[in-house]
């Protein structure tokens, strides 16, 4: 045993490149595994941090709604329940505007707090202060980043405009830009004494929001119930729900989870092929040892030990690399395109994630080596000693049938599964398609070779024929083609996905026929009139909007229903509609009619003429479907109904969205509106900048995803390199024979290049096909994830993929080809 171990170690050390390759692929796949797991907790943490800006640690909030008698209310009723809560914090807020230079204004959201309350709920760290305590009167605290940006210093007296009147505040403290002062959002924030705002509102002793955190052991839902009784005319709700955060992080992390199986798949394949070579190489040794009495168990154990070792080392390396990858991903994600400042990114991961990545490395390694080891142990000692092992892949006629069967089944199954298991099944189908392709590759290759053999005679002469013949049933070349196929297919899948998302995103706003998007808490006709007098505003349009409307027959909530005036609406949103727009406009005048998106149509199986029952304030209302619109706005989860019905049914008073057409530079018009409405709590942006920011925020994700698939491809390319070297070793003898009967060095190189070019070509072509199948299944994976995406195939991308296949394999073969041509004929031919 000891001597066996010695041999093994010696071999590991000698075959440096292969050892590197195996460790590299194990390490990378466990690194990616770790990164995919940890990115979800990191994204969750980021999101929580983001929300902390608004809510701190508060779990429950109370605020006024349109049924409330007043915007302000007393906190004492909540304070009566004090024993249930760690804190009860009443706040006030108010928007103001500040002229930080002669012509430039910025909106400042004033947050009214008691300083003690703030420190309990959403602690701030004061960097410098001057006469901050007692925190009363016209004192003001700002964040460091904002202070720097607008040139505010400690002790500065600033005039803020509130309700047309100017009030002077003194900058009494500057705080670290985190938590409440975390950058991001349209307006800057400042903390002022609550009582000061109450005075300005003439609402002494009252508050506009209450934030609460329950004591240990008190259920949040239970607390909300008892608060609702006291504040029955106000909204009492959770600040953020776990589900919200999970939902958000899911959309970010789902793509990684999708990539992961492919990366693991490629790694398993590389380890598997490497181990096949390792076992083949060890055969003489194993044979010798077995012939002198070593048991199968011993030799198997030894090989297993070797793969175990690779697993452990690869796992440790993987955790390290995974750490680096996570760091990179976190940093990319932290760049928030919605604000100019970069968030300080913090990685979040658990020891379980680290441990499971390490274990995965070990498991992958051992499992992938198992089959080759078992196969070797089945070879009779006699055959090993007499070297009767052939390296030709056996033709099994059931294999291509199984392969094609797997492919077909995996393409069909996702169409018929739904529900919770759908995601898992769809991802498994993706893997099965991969397996199916690999199983079918020998047969596919032979078919290609039959064609190429004919053509090559004319293009490349006799070396072409030889090259084509060499491709037949050659295990190493099959492995290369498989690796290329899977690598190219994954790369195509990711690229098609990201490109489709980009196209779809730009097409959302491609339908927008206006320049500025805005929201005002009291948007109505009167407001529109005020908007129209702003210089540069041509036309305005307001639509009503209701979130999360329950569809009664289908147990589904439509994310947004817009109540619109169809006569004008299509001038602002030029959606493709399933029937004539004029007819739709006419039909809309005849009662409760509804247009839903094609995405909802598919998702819910909605038909024209059908009635959808909506749950409204005034009970159940039936809307008849009269057609479909083609848009992915708000993930395509929208519907349009006549505005008068939505207003009445849902009790809406103000516009949800306001669209503006401008005759001047939209940026300038936007600024003008901002100035004009500086006192109001508005949201405004130009369509152009929304577009670019949408693109950017998606780019982040796809930069990372592309990185992922690139790493997968790199692992694949290394695998191809390895295979070419292996194939050179096993072909030495044949090449020497060819040289001895008169093949020149040039001919050797030519033949090998034709071979590799052809295998690259086949890999690329099959890869395209595989990529297409992956994408077809990904559609269902996305569907299971409640998103839907129209795929846009790009022919150039597919052509590039084929060329990539050819280039990779030709480059990988250059060194072996040169080595082959320089080979010492006699040494290779002698058999001793």
């Amino acid at each position, binding site marked *: 045993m000891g001597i066996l171990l010695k041999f093994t170690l010696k071999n590991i050390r000698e075959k440096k490149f292969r050892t590197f390759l195996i460790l590299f692929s194990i390490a990378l796949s466990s690194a990616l595994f770790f990164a995919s797991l940890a990115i979800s907790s990191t994204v969750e943490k980021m999101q929580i941090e983001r929300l902390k800006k608004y809510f701190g640690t508060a779990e429950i909030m109370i605020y006024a709604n349109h049924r409330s008698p007043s915007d302000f209310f007393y906190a004492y009723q909540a304070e009566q329940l004090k024993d249930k809560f760690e804190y009860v914090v009443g706040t006030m807020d108010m928007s103001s505007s500040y002229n930080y230079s002669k012509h430039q204004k910025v909106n400042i959201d004033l947050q009214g707090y008691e300083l003690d309350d703030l420190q309990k709920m959403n602690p701030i760290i004061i960097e410098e202060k001057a006469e901050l305590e007692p925190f009363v009167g016209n004192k003001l605290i700002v964040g460091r980043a904002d202070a720097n940006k607008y040139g505010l210093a400690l002790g500065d007296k600033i005039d803020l405009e509130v309700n047309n009147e100017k009030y002077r505040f003194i900058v009494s403290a500057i705080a670290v830009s985190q938590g409440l002062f975390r950058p991001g959002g349209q307006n800057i924030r400042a903390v002022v004494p609550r009582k000061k705002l109450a005075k300005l509102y003439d609402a002494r002793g009252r508050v506009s929001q209450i934030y609460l955190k329950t004591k240990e052991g008190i259920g949040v839902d239970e607390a909300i119930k008892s608060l609702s009784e006291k504040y029955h005319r106000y909204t009492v709700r959770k600040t953020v729900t776990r589900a919200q955060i999970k939902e958000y992080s899911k959309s970010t992390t789902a793509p990684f989870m999708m990539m992961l199986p492919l990366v693991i798949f490629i790694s398993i394949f590389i380890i598997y092929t490497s181990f096949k070579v390792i076992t083949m190489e060890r055969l003489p040794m194993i044979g010798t040892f077995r012939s002198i009495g070593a048991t199968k168990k011993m030799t198997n154990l030894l090989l297993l030990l070797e793969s175990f070792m690779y697993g452990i080392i690869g796992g440790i390396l993987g955790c390290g690399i995974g750490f680096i990858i996570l760091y990179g991903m976190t940093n990319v994600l932290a760049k928030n395109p919605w604000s100019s400042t970069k968030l300080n990114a913090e990685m979040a991961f658990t020891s379980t994630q680290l441990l499971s990545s390490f274990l995965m490395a070990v498991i992958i390694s051992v499992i992938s080596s198992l089959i080759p080891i078992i196969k070797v142990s089945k070879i009779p000692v006699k055959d090993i000693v007499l070297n009767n092992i*052939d390296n*030709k892949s056996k033709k099994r006629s059931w294999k291509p049938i199984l392969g094609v069967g797997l492919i077909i089944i995996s393409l069909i199954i996702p169409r018929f599964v739904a529900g919770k298991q759908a995601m898992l099944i769809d991802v498994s189908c993706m893997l099965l398609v991969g397996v199916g392709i690999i199983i079918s590759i020998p047969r596919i290759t032979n078919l290609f070779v039959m064609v190429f053999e004919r053509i090559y005679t004319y293009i490349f*002469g*006799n070396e072409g*024929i*030889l090259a084509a*013949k*060499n491709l*037949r*049933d*050659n295990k190493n070349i099959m492995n290369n083609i498989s690796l290329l196929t899977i690598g190219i297919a994954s790369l195509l899948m990711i690229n098609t996905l990201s490109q489709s998302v980009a196209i779809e995103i730009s097409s959302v706003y491609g339908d927008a026929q206006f320049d500025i998007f805005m929201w005002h808490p009291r948007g109505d006709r009167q407001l529109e009139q005020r908007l129209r007098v702003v210089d540069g505003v041509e036309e305005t349009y307001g639509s009503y909007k209701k979130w999360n409307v329950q569809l009664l027959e289908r147990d589904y909530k439509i994310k947004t229903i817009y109540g619109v005036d169809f006569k004008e609406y299509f001038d602002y949103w030029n959606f493709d509609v399933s029937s004539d727009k004029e007819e739709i406009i006419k039909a809309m005048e005849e009662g409760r009619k509804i247009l839903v998106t094609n995405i909802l149509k598919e998702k819910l199986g909605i038909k024209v003429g059908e009635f959808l029952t909506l749950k409204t304030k005034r009970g159940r209302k039936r809307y008849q479907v009269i057609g479909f619109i083609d848009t992915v706005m708000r993930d395509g989860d929208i519907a349009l109904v006549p505005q008068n019905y939505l207003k009445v049914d849902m009790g809406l008073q103000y516009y949800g969205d306001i669209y503006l057409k401008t005759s001047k530079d939209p940026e300038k018009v936007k600024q003008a509106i901002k100035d004009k409405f500086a006192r109001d709590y508005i949201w405004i942006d130009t369509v152009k900048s929304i577009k670019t920011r949408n693109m950017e925020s998606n780019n982040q994700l796809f930069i990372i995803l592309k990185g992922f698939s690139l790493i997968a491809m790199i692992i694949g390319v290394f695998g191809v390199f390895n295979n070419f070297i292996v194939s050179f070793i096993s072909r030495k*003898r*044949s090449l020497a*024979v*060819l*040289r*001895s*009967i*008169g*093949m*020149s*060095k*040039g*001919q050797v190189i030519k033949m090998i290049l034709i071979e590799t070019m052809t295998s690259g070509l086949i890999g690329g072509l099959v890869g395209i096909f595989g990529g297409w199948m992956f994408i077809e299944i990904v559609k269902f994976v996305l569907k299971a994830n409640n998103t839907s995406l129209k795929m846009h195939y790009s022919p150039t991308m597919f052509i590039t993929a084929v060329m990539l296949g050819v280039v990779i394999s030709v480059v990988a073969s250059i060194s072996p080809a040169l080595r082959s041509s320089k080979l010492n*004929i*006699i040494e290779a*031919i*002698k*058999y001793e």
Partner: protein
Amino acid sequence: MIETTNLYKNFKLGELEVEVLKDINLIIEEGEFVSIMGPSGSGKSTLLYLLGGLDKPSSGSIKVNGKELAVMKDKEESIMRRRELGFVFQFYNLIPNLNVEENVLLPILLDGKAMKEHQGDLDEILEIVGLSDRRKHTPRELSGGQQQRVAIARALINKPEVILADEPIGNLDSKTGMEIMELFKRINQEQNKTVVQVTHSERSAEYGTRIIRLKDGKVCE
């Protein structure tokens, strides 16, 4: 036909320099059937490979058909190997993924000629070596003797003047071995090919017209 003068061959084994062939001077005439004999390790194979240009001598010269091997470029040398020489090795050395026909036609392929035009030659040679009914078999489906016949057919297909064979029957049973020797003899006599074989067995050497004995890298006649 083949002429060597003051031929030396050394191998470096680490620090050590081993002289394997020492001052070999040989002339082999057209139509001869020469057997090189000698104990194991005496340099027989090394000499044969040198004659076929598969390796380079340390010093001295080799002329084949009047041409000096040392000055030839790889391409010329390869062309010479495929047109003027035919190699047969102890371990048949066929290409496993090609069938009998394809293996035999390899030198033609390498010469850039169309396989179809040599169909007649192929038929004739397969007839001579007795493998007409095994054309589509792959090497693994053939016995050792049959594989060696394929190798001989391959060596003959391009109608070379010289056949170089390194222990061609060393791996075969004696009956098959003698059949192969008969084959060489026929080729030598009927087609007037020069045959140079390395052999251990006196019996097979008797098929030839001359014996060259090597001992410790020297010719002793």
